[in-house]
């Protein structure tokens, strides 16, 4: 494969485009509400109407407004049909050439769509994730070809450095810096890993990217492998994502057939094999050192860092590990240039971020917005606020490692620094909206239970500390706790945060600390008076001098 082949494929693909396209969402959300038989019915209806030469029925990735699925978009008229049933197929096909189908239509001019900015999801809902040609038609693999044939590995890394891209897996570590470290690490064998473990409850951004645009992730990994000098890649994806897995398998197979993976990619000396590794669904296996242990076939538990994976990773070799969304940004950056990307977002947080908007909000689904977008714009404009006239009380970001941002701070821009100033984190992109009826102590307990169950059990503060914190939170919820219990809880938060081995334990207290910071009253109003009885004041012997 050389540049000309790419261009030819693209031209062939564009030339074969039909006048009308019905894009059917085939991502997990819509698939679970019968999108497959809807697509089959649409194809039948097209055939029945004798329109096969004019209409393409294309399975695509996520169309974003997941709460209204199954979704079908009709082009070029740009009509988004919502909650489509297989019976509606004929009407939709009939309406292609004018007229109205009696099917509920979404408002594509709603801020939910218009305020989005797509880099990571640019192909989502447009290309067919099961056909590599469809990706190539959207300029796919062009960045890889240009890098391999026209750029030094260091230039690729420099491009990522200058773009200001930061890791989307949670911590926001500068991606270019990480690549540079791996590139500089000495070793004959190096690895690239894509972290697709996505364990936060309620998060489905990475899943959507993998289901909607798997080639973008492969291309991003290939660019990274070239930049750091790796020839073997792994995608660690949870086994609970069968659709993502099968699309990745298809994508890898197709890329190999085209010579875009394997040996001598684009007829250059660059070789890359990418294999899948399936995780069994332990949250902690998303932590990079635990993930690598799991890939090596060991029990997935974290180990102390340093040494960092960049120096000693998989089988003690230098290893680059990035999140799905991080990799998915890479082809666009290499294609459009670092300056283009650096022009989007805020000073320290560049580009866009994908969020899975969920909870007590009208429009739930997948959104991608420029960094620095105000939370209020996301929640009120795009999300449409709380349903049924309720009021929003708080927004939770960062899942079990994150915190709650109270309604009063909704004008906070979404970027790494602003969120952490409020005691929350960007996290991987879960965003849960809570309304007035939400019990914040119960929310804290829910996340603590999650961390307690998902703790790997290796280190004492996290294993025993989360269990004890959960016990104390349960006592508070049950109105059986005293002020002293609350003090113990706060002390444990501090201890677990500062002494745990890995990020799971270090961040497990965050939901408690954050709800205590903004909703302390909900804790204190449940406290019971202490019935332990304090000692009297005067005493013949020293008394009561010790804290219990």
């Amino acid at each position, binding site marked *: 494969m050389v540049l000309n082949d790419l261009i030819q494929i693209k031209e062939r693909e564009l030339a074969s485009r039909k006048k009308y396209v019905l894009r059917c969402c085939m991502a997990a959300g819509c698939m679970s509400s019968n999108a497959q038989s809807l697509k089959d019915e649409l194809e039948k209806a097209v055939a029945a109407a004798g329109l096969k030469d004019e209409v393409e029925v294309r399975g695509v990735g996520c169309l974003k407004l997941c709460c209204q699925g199954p979704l079908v978009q009709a082009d070029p008229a740009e009509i988004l049909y919502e909650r489509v049933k297989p019976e509606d197929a004929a009407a939709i096909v009939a309406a292609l050439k004018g007229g109205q189908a009696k099917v509920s239509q979404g408002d594509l001019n709603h801020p939910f769509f218009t305020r989005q900015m797509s880099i990571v999801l640019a192909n989502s809902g447009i290309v067919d994730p099961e056909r590599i040609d469809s990706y190539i038609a959207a300029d796919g693999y062009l960045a890889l070809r240009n890098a391999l044939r026209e750029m030094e590995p260091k230039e690729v890394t420099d491009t990522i450095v200058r773009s200001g891209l930061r890791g989307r897996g949670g911590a926001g570590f500068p991606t270019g810096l990480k690549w540079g470290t791996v590139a500089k690490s000495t070793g004959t064998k190096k690895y690239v890993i894509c972290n697709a473990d996505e364990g936060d409850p309620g998060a489905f951004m990475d899943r959507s990217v993998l289901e909607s645009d798997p080639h973008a992730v492969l291309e991003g990994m290939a660019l990274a492998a070239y930049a750091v000098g790796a020839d073997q890649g792994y995608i660690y994806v949870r086994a609970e994502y069968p659709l993502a897995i099968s699309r990745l398998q298809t994508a890898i197979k197709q890329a190999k057939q085209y010579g875009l993976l394997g040996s001598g990619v684009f007829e250059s000396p660059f070789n890359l094999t990418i294999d899948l590794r399936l995780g069994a669904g332990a949250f902690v296996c998303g932590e990079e050192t635990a993930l690598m242990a799991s890939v090596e076939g060991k*029990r997935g538990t974290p180990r102390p860092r340093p040494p960092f994976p960049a120096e000693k990773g998989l089988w003690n070799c230098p290893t680059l590990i990035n999140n799905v969304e991080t990799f998915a940004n890479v082809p666009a950056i290499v294609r459009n240039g670092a300056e283009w990307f650096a022009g989007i977002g805020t000073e320290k947080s560049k580009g866009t971020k994908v969020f899975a908007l969920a909870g007590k909000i009208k429009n739930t689904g997948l959104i991608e917005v420029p960094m620095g977008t105000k939370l209020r714009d996301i929640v009120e404009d795009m999300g449409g606020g709380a349903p049924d006239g309720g009021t929003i009380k708080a927004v939770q970001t960062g899942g079990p490692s994150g915190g709650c941002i109270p309604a009063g701070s909704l004008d906070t821009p979404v970027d790494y620094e602003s969120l952490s100033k409020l005691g929350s984190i960007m996290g991987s992109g879960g965003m849960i909206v809570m309304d007035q009826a939400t019990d914040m102590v119960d929310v804290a307990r829910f996340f603590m239970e999650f961390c307690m169950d998902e*703790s790997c*059990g290796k*280190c004492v*503060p996290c294993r025993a500390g*989360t*269990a*004890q914190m959960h*016990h104390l939170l349960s006592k508070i919820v049950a109105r059986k706790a005293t002020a002293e219990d609350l003090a113990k809880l706060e002390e444990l938060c501090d201890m677990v945060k500062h*002494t745990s081995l890995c990020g799971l334990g270090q961040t497990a207290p965050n939901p408690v600390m954050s709800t205590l910071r903004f909703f302390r009253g909900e804790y204190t109003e449940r406290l019971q008076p202490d019935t332990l009885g304090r000692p009297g004041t005067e005493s013949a012997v020293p008394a009561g001098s010790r804290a219990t």
Partner: protein
Amino acid sequence: MCAKTLTIDGNEVSAADDATILDAATEAGIKIPTLCHLEGVYDIGACRLCLVEAVGIPKLLPACTTKVVEGMNVRTDTERIRKYRRINLELLFAERNHVCSVCVSNNHCELQTLAYNHGMDHVRYDYLFPKWAVDTTHPRYGMDHNRCILCTRCVRVCWHVEGAGTLNTAGRGARSQIIADLIQPWGEADSCTSCGKCVMACPTGALFQRGATVGEMEHDREKLEFIITAREKKQWIP
């Protein structure tokens, strides 16, 4: 190999190039509490009792897995560290069922000793009283999960000193447990050579010789050290 110099609790100390903070402190006669560390097998940094402060580094560092850095200034016994250690020990006692008065290791238990040294005269947290079994299917040894602190010393000696690979960890969080072979009763684990190294390595009364009664179980750490020294350094020093 060049040496490094650093300060530990105000003392100038020199250490081998690849030494850990724990090595350096031990050599200088400064005691840092440890539980998961076992001389002669690799460290895993799990118990977090050896955490120390280093001036200029915001995070606490596990002494057993952190390599010394030239000029570093380590404090091993600050108020904050002592507080964290005490909480850590209390969490361990509250987590499972430690009834010292009926324990085979009473008076010979590293967990107990650490608790005393940290002034733990009672536990401020509610005891959680989980239900755990005792495995006495092995003809020579017993395993009482009630007293296990999951330090995995037994697992590491089993794999890396004896080479049998019988013991392992299974499960998550507080329900993690030491298992034999494929979660079988220990007595049915074919790979076990009955060498007893795990029993020697165990810091608590979780692993014991059958027939030992209250307070009788003394873990023969010297014997284990002898074996490890012999293997690693080819020195037969009794």
